[in-house]
């Protein structure tokens, strides 16, 4: 019902184009997260959907109706802002009721009922008579969410709602938002963040944006397992996927990727003739482990060791000059020391290939599935 459909949506400020023809299909009740680095256009895209910014090209449909020229209210959306945007001179109750009170269709008892219900869900009932300045950051954000709930929106928009909260509160509020999504299962939610943990944990579907383009749309696991290109590969996952330049060639039983150091790894699927030559090999830090045998594809000197308790991060200089170090994430605490030479290996299935332009090269079976 409350599906959101974007067709070639463009946004330009004068001559500067911020969104370049975004196509997106969002189903009812889905939780969609827009992620991307700062300046990628994710917030602009959200504001375009909200109706706070005009669309300069393409169409936006909500519920199958083109809403390009409709006001935020007519679109049936509600939005939670990064800065909370509460009315500073109104109490919590007034903040939540303000939009409803002026709506002729809702009578007073109905307004009261809705506000109380939202306050109950968010556990802000004790603060209804307080002014926003007497609340903590987390409470303020809950009020902002409550204000959005009372509007009973078709589409619920979040613009980096957790980025002004401290780390502990961020996790707690994140879980609350996930619960809220379960309760309001018919409501479509669109959430903007630059924090990939938020994206991975909350989203049904993640939209990775870069410079006003959609790089990839998919479930969190899809993006993690099978990034479409180098940008998504680097953006999803922490620490980021290691990308090494490689020369790709077809060989017996699969593909060989030759690394600059002379070592070569074999992948268990065949590439096409046109994909031979220069490319990239990607391997996630968590897929690397200390090699058991005499030889290993990744050999280098450890330049830095970070002990995080549950994992140990090794920064390994592969001796290829200039490049970023290879990062390996080992379980538990490792006794590898700085200056030592380590041999690392990864399972063949964990390796990812990209062509020279950064597009993923996938096994034929996966290509068909995608």
């Amino acid at each position, binding site marked *: 019902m409350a599906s959101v459909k974007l067709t070639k949506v463009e946004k330009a400020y004068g001559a500067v184009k911020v969104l370049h023809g975004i196509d997106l299909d969002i189903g009812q009740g889905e939780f969609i997260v827009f992620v991307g680095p700062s300046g990628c256009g994710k917030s602009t895209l959200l504001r375009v959907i909200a109706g706070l910014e005009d669309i300069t090209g393409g169409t936006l449909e909500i519920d199958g109706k083109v809403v390009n020229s409709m006001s*935020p209210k007519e679109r049936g959306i509600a939005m939670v*802002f990064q800065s909370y945007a509460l009315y500073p001179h109104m109490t919590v109750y007034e903040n939540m009721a303000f*939009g409803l009170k002026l709506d002729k269709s809702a009578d007073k008892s109905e307004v009261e009922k809705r506000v109380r219900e939202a306050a109950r869900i968010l556990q802000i009932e004790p603060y209804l008579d307080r002014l926003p300045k007497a609340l903590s950051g987390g409470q303020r954000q809950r009020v902002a969410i409550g204000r959005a709930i009372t509007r009973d929106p078709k589409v619920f928009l979040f613009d980096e709602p957790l980025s002004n909260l401290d780390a502990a509160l961020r996790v707690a509020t994140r879980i609350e938002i996930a619960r809220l999504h379960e309760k309001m299962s018919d409501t479509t939610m669109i959430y903007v963040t630059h924090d990939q943990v938020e994206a991975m944990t909350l989203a049904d579907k993640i939209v990775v944006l870069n410079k006003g383009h959609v790089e990839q749309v998919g479930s969190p696991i899809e993006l993690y397992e099978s990034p479409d290109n180098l940008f998504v590969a680097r953006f999803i996952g922490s620490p980021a996927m290691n990308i090494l330049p490689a020369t790709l060639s077809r060989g017996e039983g699969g593909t060989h990727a030759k690394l600059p150091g002379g070592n070569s790894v074999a992948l268990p699927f065949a590439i096409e003739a046109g994909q031979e030559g220069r490319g990239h090999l990607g391997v996630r830090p968590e897929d690397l482990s200390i090699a058991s045998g005499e030889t290993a594809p990744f050999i280098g000197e450890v330049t830095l060791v970070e002990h995080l308790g549950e994992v140990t991060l090794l920064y390994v200089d592969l001796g290829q000059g200039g490049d970023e170090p290879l990062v390996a994430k080992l379980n538990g605490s490792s006794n590898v020391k700085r200056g030592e030479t380590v041999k690392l290996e990864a399972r063949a299935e964990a390796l990812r290939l990209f062509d020279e332009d950064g597009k993923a090269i996938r096994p034929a079976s996966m290509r068909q599935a995608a």
Partner: protein
Amino acid sequence: MTNVTIGAPPTDKAMAAEKRPATRSKLSRQRLRSAWIFLTPMLIVLALVAGWPLVETIYYSFTNASLSNIAGAEWVGLRNYYEYVDYGDGEGEYFGLFFDSQWWNAVWNTVYYSAISVSIETVLGLVFALVLNAEFKGRSFVRAAVLIPWAIPTIVSAKMWAWMMNDQFGILNDMLMTVGLISAPVAWTANPDTAMWAVIIVDVWKTTPFMALLILAGLQMVPGDVYEAAKIDGIHPVEVFWKVTLPLIRPAILVAVIFRALDALRVFDLIYVLTPNNTDTKTMSVFAQENLFQFDKFAYGSAASTFLFLVIAMITLLYIKVAKLDLGGGR
């Protein structure tokens, strides 16, 4: 923004600090000393230029001082304010400032002028501020242009307007007669019906920019995201103005109004230049100046000045109380 928790139980740290007064007091004594070092020059200057003249004025209001004989002033008690002269035959008369109809006329003129001009300036200033706060081409130019009347010295603008309002050669009469709004020239600054309004018009012209500037500063403090939230809430712009903008800039408006009211209550130069010797526009300050320096009734003028001071002080205190103005800066 800081969150102050009132009545919070003392923390362990604070209790520990209380037990060690020696180290704390040394630091606070040092701070106190530097505060006094910075404050003293200003306090001395204030005492010299504001405190001393005020005390002198109040003192002379209880004497029989005249301009020619200030040094020989003698104490006469309340005689300048209130005196009953018994004519001996059972009849008598009250004298003094409290029974001077000219003085009460001046008080009324002042209050009337202040109330009307400050009200008009507030409304117009708010409109100007809203316009200047909007985004449009050439905004900085308009902002500067609007301030010009405020930048012109009062004497100059009063004289300028006096010429424009001149009954024989004034451009105002010429324009109104050309358009056909009036049939005969009006002596704007002399006519009892128009004199006060002439003064008010010039004052509004001159000080609306000041009002606009102060309110504009208040408008710029309103966070923009609140307006976006209102847009999402689907609130009509007119409603947003009354329910969001106005309450949020209320402190700025209240401060601007008190600034202007204090100025208006002691208005002198504009009236002295634009409508000299006109009882219809004579204000408390003009009354005091006349008695002090023109009528050689220095003591009586001092009494008027003292009374003026009391009236302004009372109106200010009343205003602060009624408007619940927080001059402490707490938000």
